[in-house]
């Protein structure tokens, strides 16, 4: 099937300086690949006035300088038309192994919800391959796609006021790793000592080095003790 014709990108304004483009109703590989190619094209040739952009699972959000707010609608139509036929991005993914200790306070909660033993939860979590679909929420937080459907577990009803950096957690259909201490409502099943965010690298000429991961990376969790 020609994926270039299988997507119909819709957009709407998101305030006076923003545009949100929607590619699909549900996350998946073809949406992800399209978002990768759109991101790539934005970075190679950003539209005039673009000051920032944000990835979602099925969306991409663009923010413009106030001076360009007047012409956003025409620009949005042009971008959507161009992106409908953008070829998939052909980069080679990086492979990253994340050492993990499965000692999280919500391991039992996930086990109870899924009807498995805690050992089986850990085994299934470390057996899967994950892809970083996006970074967001707080600096360097990876949303990992590929969680075994049997491990899908709703977020906590009341978020914890503080989750320590390095916490490995399950939120709904996804798993992720907290790069910094933040309040959060995901089920914490373990922790890693790997640093996902290096604020000390955020000042140099290549601030992207501050982040361990980026969209497209393939992740495996490797249990350590």
């Amino acid at each position, binding site marked *: 099937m020609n994926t270039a014709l299988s997507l119909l990108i819709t957009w709407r304004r*998101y305030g006076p300086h923003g545009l949100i483009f929607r590619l699909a109703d549900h996350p998946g590989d073809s949406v992800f690949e399209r978002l990768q190619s759109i*991101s790539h094209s934005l970075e190679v040739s950003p539209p005039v006035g673009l000051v*920032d952009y944000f990835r979602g*699972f099925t969306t991409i959000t663009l923010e413009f300088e106030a001076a360009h707010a007047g012409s956003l609608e025409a620009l949005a139509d042009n971008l959507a038309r161009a992106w409908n036929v953008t070829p998939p991005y052909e980069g080679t993914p990086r492979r990253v192994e994340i050492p993990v200790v499965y000692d999280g306070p919500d391991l039992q909660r996930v086990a109870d919800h899924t009807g498995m033993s805690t050992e089986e939860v850990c085994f299934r979590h470390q057996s899967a391959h994950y892809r970083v679909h*996006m*970074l967001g929420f707080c600096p360097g937080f990876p949303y990992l796609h590929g969680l075994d459907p049997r491990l899908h577990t709703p977020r906590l009803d009341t978020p914890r006021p503080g989750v320590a950096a390095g916490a490995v957690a399950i939120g709904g259909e996804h798993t992720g790793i907290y790069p910094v201490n933040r309040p959060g409502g995901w089920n914490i099943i373990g922790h890693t000592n790997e640093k996902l965010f290096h604020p000390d690298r955020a*000042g140099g000429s290549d601030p992207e080095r501050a982040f361990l991961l980026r969209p497209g990376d393939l992740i495996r969790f490797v249990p350590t003790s």
Partner: protein
Amino acid sequence: MLHSLQPVLRVLSPGLGLTLQDTGRHGFGRFGVPRSGAMDPHAFSWANRLLNNAPNAGALEILLQGAALEFLTDTWIAVCGADLECSVSRWRTVRVTSGTHVEFTRNKSGIWAYLAVEGGFGSEAAEYFGSQSTYADAGLGKKFEPGDLLQRLDKTEHRLVLPPGVASRLVPWDEHRDYRFPPPLRVWPGPQWDFFTEQDRSRFFGNDWTTTSRSDRTGFRLAGPSIKSRESQIISEAVLPGSVQIPGNGQPIVTMNDGPTVGGYPKLGLVDPADLGWLAQARPGTKVRFTPSN
């Protein structure tokens, strides 16, 4: 180093909160880095403008009350924003001399005050992703503590020189704001506008909302009638500052500068960036109203 620096003040007490803020960091949203920056751009910009500073020069952001500073050199300063009991007048340039203590004792209205120094604060290590804005949760800058020293750019071209016969420079009277009475805040339709019935939208625009104490640099929580969304969760997508999120309990959370860049609550609208500073300055218990933006 490009700029030479000179100590300008020492923090005696941070009070309830003291950080450095500028116009924020842009361009790293896709990595999850929030914009941060001054909560009230109006007051922040006037503080810099009075001193001929660059529009994005860093200024001290003072939360509510209690901050105390000792100046280490003679300098012009400007304080704009929240109404604080203080020896320094707001909305004008003030000359302070080395050894002067400035205390911000009691907050009378508003939440955030901005103190700028001539030339702007400078620090060799304090720029993260091109901004001095403190985002302490992720180690980008820090909340100031007693004893911290701040420096300013030390060059004659950074100094403020008023024309002969002029004692001070003032912000025009009609630009002073009374934060107790915010005007109706303009709201644009949000990405999930269609998740809300006509009736729920009318309820949002037709009622007073009260700001609550569960509000900070990440978000402002409002209390009022319950608003229902067709779905209580969406697939995670961008959340721009000013977004009016409606979680399952029906009480809006307006995302602010340090808020998460991505979230899963439906967004009914977006407070116009030009009006967001009014909400930021609304102390708990303040009544706010929203009006559709055209």
